[in-house]
């Protein structure tokens, strides 16, 4: 076992992990931050996307020890300080960007990473950026619409199906 320390959603976090402990396991099992979902465990579905030092990564495909000293952000840290939904989360609610909700934490974290590097993406750019986030319910239309809306763009002409 090794001791690992990192900052998660602005708070210091540490624990004992094995070499093989995944970042997703550490977040969920050691820190009880179960908002980070593990959908496929083969790094394809993106439900486990978190930010490590500001960059979107798949927490199921990174070892916890590799996050030693890192700043980690998860879905639990996305709400506004007063507890209300942030602009991306609110847009997902307003535009019905989820059905079962399983993929939503990863979708929101990927959307946040996209909007940080590209504040006004085109619809095509949003769809391309979500290549590594799989949703089996919505058909993506309303997820794309929500992200476009969260970027402050007019979404009235985007098809809703």
């Amino acid at each position, binding site marked *: 076992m*090794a001791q690992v320390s990192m900052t998660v959603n602005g708070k210091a976090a540490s624990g004992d992990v*094995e*070499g*093989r402990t*995944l970042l997703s396991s550490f977040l969920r099992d050691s820190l009880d931050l179960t908002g980070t979902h593990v959908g496929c*465990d*083969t*790094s394809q579905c*993106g439900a486990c*996307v978190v930010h490590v030092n500001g*960059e*979107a*990564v*798949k927490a199921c*495909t*990174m*070892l916890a*020890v*590799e996050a*030693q000293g890192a700043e980690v952000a998860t879905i639990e840290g996305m709400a506004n300080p007063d507890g209300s939904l942030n602009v991306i989360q609110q847009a997902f609610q307003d535009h019905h960007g989820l059905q079962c909700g399983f993929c939503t934490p990863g979708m929101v974290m*990927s959307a946040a*990473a*996209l909007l940080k590097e590209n504040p006004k993406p085109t619809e095509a750019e949003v769809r391309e*950026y979500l*290549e*590594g*986030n799989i949703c089996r319910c919505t058909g993506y239309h309303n997820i794309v619409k929500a992200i476009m809306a969260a970027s402050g763009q007019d979404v009235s002409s985007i098809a809703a199906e």
Partner: protein
Amino acid sequence: MYNFDVEMPTSIADAVAALGKEDAQALGGGQTLIPTLKQRLASPSVLVSLSGISEMQGVCKGDDGKLCVGGATTHATVARDAASSFPGLAGLASHIGDPAVRNRGTIGGSLANNDPSACYPAAALGAGATIVTNDREIAADDFFQGMFTTDLEEGEIITEVRFPIPDASNYQKFLQPASRFALVGVFVAKFSDGVRVAVTGASNDGVFRWSEAEAALSANFSANALDGLTVSGDDMINDLHGTGEYRAHLVGVMTKRAVAAAG
């Protein structure tokens, strides 16, 4: 996963020393190796992470005009930092996997693994790059030795990749719709002394150069120059995603698209 110890060296020398341990294995970005470990297809006793070695990070222009990419540089960094100097390489890097994978996966990891459907081997072979290790320099023409096989010795680390910068270049791939890996990918690079064409995804022997296309394009760098040229599908990968014959056809199509896009 079977359990293992993880070492996090901060210098190449320390990494090489750690890789001398029994059953030690280098860990780049882990985007292939970690899924492989989950499947219990590998069981190293020690993983030596290369992600904390600052001397293996980043993109720069060498005195000889070549683009030097540190072995532990992520695809996202290459996509961003090579965009102005070598757009063909940056374009390739910007379409590997997905954004989260590109933030972890590294050029050294991709080349050392030499997956027959990976994108980077096509760029390294197509541009005639030099693979620099902790021990020596290897020409790309000698580095790739068949599917998942390279000239690397046990414990040898790719510390840097040096790319001659072509006058024009482009990479085009036809995605395998499920895995999003390249069913066929072609990198075309035009230099003052000739054209190189490297094909990934297609052959049972991994990445290869298409010499007939190189000769035709060296004489006339236009998609039309490839009219009538075909490659044989006999030694191509034949699986449920496409026959060898289909892949051979795609080689021609992707090469034409890459030439047209390179301009």
